[in-house]
């Protein structure tokens, strides 16, 4: 209950700080948490009003704050974050190509976001498909702590979105309504819930669009709405950011994180992506796969012990000159991949010193990032 009030308060702060878009999205999350049809109706009517013509921001904010005040009175029970899946020593071998995935160990709890990273062909999709029970595995154990033990019913609670989603037919809204109806959301609630999720993922304007009329990004948003309407327990996403622009990538990741940590219906998410930094930013845990082996595993809530500093750098300076400049910091390694330098220093937390040296030497820096805690450092 208190957590919900805090969430509402946070949304209020976003709005008061001028972050109208973010505030609105979080407002929708709060509405979803309440699971109240009246609030759904109110949100739909607010959106309709908001989208029907250009509105004054202040007026919009005041309406949203007014709505928040009403939401604040709601009693939202908070779900306990329980364990959903435990994988132990999981192995899968393909006879062709001699690829072997494993040993994989992981535990997914409600509200967790797992990032799955690695270069192409290293087993990310295979692992996701095994978790989705699309592929059989050879060794190890995989225990789902989900109510139904039957395979089909279990799979209805695991939602796997592949890289290339299938074409659908009819209007966007009808498709979503059909999904919701199949999942037992019937009658008026069906319409309301579908519209609320469409608002949440920015599909309000596109509700009567057909598949061919939507861009790749909106198709992915559609898939996400469809997924959330299914009330999944575990959501498995294969490269969901592949077709999105930079801004959309951040938005989607932020949305996923926020929805995963829903108070009323927290879910576990595993997502694979090449957008390392973005994924790392939202993930509670990251699994890095190299040739099928999990070479590093960062567990949620566990501070990694960093023993060296790894920096990604793009600057107008030659390699020899750079080595000379950073001589005092005793660099262990300096690799140049043609575009960016990858600098490894023996001492931890040395980013400040590197930056200071470069600034003092008037080196023109285009880009610099400390990747000591990022899985990026494993990409050679």
């Amino acid at each position, binding site marked *: 209950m208190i957590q919900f009030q805090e969430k509402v308060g946070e949304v209020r702060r976003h709005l008061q700080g001028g972050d109208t878009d973010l505030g609105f999205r979080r407002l929708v999350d709060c509405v979803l948490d309440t699971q109240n049809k009246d609030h759904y109706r109110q949100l739909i009517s607010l959106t309709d009003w908001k989208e029907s013509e250009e509105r004054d921001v202040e007026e919009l904010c005041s309406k949203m704050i007014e709505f928040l005040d009403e939401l604040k009175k709601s009693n939202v029970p908070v779900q306990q974050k329980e364990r959903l899946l435990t994988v132990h020593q999981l192995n899968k071998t393909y006879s062709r190509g001699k690829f072997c995935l494993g040993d994989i160990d992981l535990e997914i709890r409600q509200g967790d976001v797992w990032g799955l990273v690695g270069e192409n062909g290293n087993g990310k999709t295979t692992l996701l498909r*095994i978790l989705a*029970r*699309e*592929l*059989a595995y050879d060794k190890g154990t995989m225990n789902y702590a989900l109510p139904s033990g*039957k*395979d*089909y*019913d*279990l*799979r*209805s609670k*695991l939602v796997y979105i592949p890289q290339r989603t299938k074409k*659908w*037919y*009819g209007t966007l809204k*009808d*498709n979503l*309504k*059909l*999904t919701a*109806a*199949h*999942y*037992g959301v*019937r*009658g*008026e609630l*069906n*319409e309301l819930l579908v519209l609320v999720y469409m608002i949440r993922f920015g599909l309000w304007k596109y509700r009567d669009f057909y598949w061919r009329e939507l861009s790749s990004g909106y198709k992915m948003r559609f898939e996400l709405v469809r997924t959330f309407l*299914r009330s999944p327990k575990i959501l498995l996403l294969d490269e969901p950011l592949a077709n999105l622009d930079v801004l959309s990538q951040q938005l989607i990741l932020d949305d996923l994180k926020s929805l995963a940590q829903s108070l009323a219906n927290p879910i576990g998410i595993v997502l694979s992506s090449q957008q390392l930094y973005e994924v790392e930013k939202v993930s509670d845990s990251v699994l890095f796969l190299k040739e099928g082996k999990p070479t590093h595993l960062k567990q949620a809530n566990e501070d990694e012990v960093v023993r060296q500093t790894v920096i990604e750098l793009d600057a107008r300076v030659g390699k020899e000159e750079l080595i000379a400049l950073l001589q005092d910091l005793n660099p262990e390694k300096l690799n140049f991949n043609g575009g960016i330098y990858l600098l490894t220093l023996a001492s931890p937390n040395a980013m400040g010193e590197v930056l200071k040296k470069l600034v003092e030497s008037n080196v023109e820096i285009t880009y610099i990032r400390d990747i000591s805690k990022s899985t990026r450092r494993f990409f050679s």
Partner: protein
Amino acid sequence: MRQYRKWNKYLLENHPLCWHSKFFQMSFFALLFWGISWLSAYLMTSQEVLNQTLIRNYYERSNFYLIHIIAVIIASVVWALYFYRNNPLKSFYPIRKGYFTKLFLMFFVQFALWVGANYPFTMGARYKANQLLHATELEQARGELNLAAPFMPEGEGNYQLMERIYPDPFPISYSVYDEYSEVWTDLPDYDERAYKSDYLYYETDRDYSMKQALDTNFQVRIDGRKYLFYTTLEKYEGSDSCTSHSFFNHFVSMDPKRIRLHEYDVLNYGQVMLAPSFAYDESYSNVKYFQTHYAKQIHDWVLQKQYDSIRRVLERSQVFLKKYGIAHDWDNDVLLDYWKRKDFSDPGSLFTSYRTQESSANLKRLSKLWMQESDSTFFREMTEQTPFFLDRGALQTLYENYDYLEESVWKRWEPTLFIGLGMAWLALLVEISGLIALLLTIPVSGVLIITISLLTVVLSQGFSDSGKVLLTISLTLFGIIGGVAIWLKRKNNVPRIIWEISMNLVYVMTPFVLSMAWLLTDLYTKDDLFDACDYQVRHLIPELTPAWVLLLATCSIILYLPMIKMRQAKPE
């Protein structure tokens, strides 16, 4: 349109299965096509059609079935494009209890409705026929036509004297032969081919009536005399034909001192009516009808030489034929003059001279006389000078159509329901199977069926009771395939495609296996009961009628339904 959208929205939100399967739309358009079908038949049916075509066959004859087939194909393809686009099973949406049963039943109903659009066509034609044919008139004319029939020309050509048969006191023809071979082989133009069943229906020789005997399936001794019954395929189909026994019993029950009927005579006796009742299936019943309603009257007219009465019915018949557009042309004066000159005796009555006690030589004589009479100068002159013509076929078609109005249009329900079931069965298979597995199932099924057939034939060599052996072996082989499929399902390391094909085969085979098992059980448990004049089969389980096959096929699909979720959830 607004109401439709509202209703469609309601279905989508509350009954996703109905919305997705487009059941109501399919059924609606099927019923719409029923309307079109009914209207087409109503507009197409005319008096000419009623005289030329049997309404029960009008759907096929009018080529409307082509339009129907095209409509079914278009409807099915459009429906499939909508339906298979979104597959809840393959998307792992929750499948509630009874989901597949409902889906299958909806498929069945919608396809059966589409396939059954021939019924409204027949109904439309019947409705129009009801308007065109006036019951009172036809019933009255039936009596007059039948009374006039023995005195009318016959056939579509000129007046033909063949097949003319009269009731007592002009004895109807009959044939009783002591020995099969002696009779037929003595005929002057004996041709062995004429006695084989293959040639029976194509024989057009004028001696056809004499050559019809085929087999001596039945014999009986009455007063120490052995009677052999020469049967035709039309009448007796084999030793278990129950129809034959009714005639057989009738024969035995007749007074042996009087003339007994031969089967062929019975047929002709029935044919003497111009407007027989088609409410009866058998000619034999028409014989009784003739005897009851007209025979006495005709006898009286002939015995008392009541030419005026004959003229009256002939004239009334002409009025009726004209009104209903039946082609006819004869002169009553000439016709009556003919009967006066012949004194009601024509070559048909030559049969009267042929008696049981007479030898086969009489038959030769009879044949010769008949031919001579047919070629006589009088006959030739008469047919050349005066056209004696009646489109007897049109008249009978008209009456058959009239009698058909009393019959149920739903009598032939089997094809519709079987095709409907087949389409539903296939639609469900497409729904539950992967595309590649489905396409591969077709050749695999073909190869398996051929292999099983060959193996069954080879393995059943040397067994006397081939029916049981063939079925037992086939069932065993099908059982082995089913067992292998289920074993594959349990194995984890079998490629999904192989496993899926094997499960498709189980789905495809089950209706046949169940039907075969039923048939086999029936074969092993039924009792054949014989007595002097009767032959009966006592079944422990109901006979495998189309209705049972339909029920078994439906049961097999419903039995398979629980497997669908299991097979879908199996990982690769």
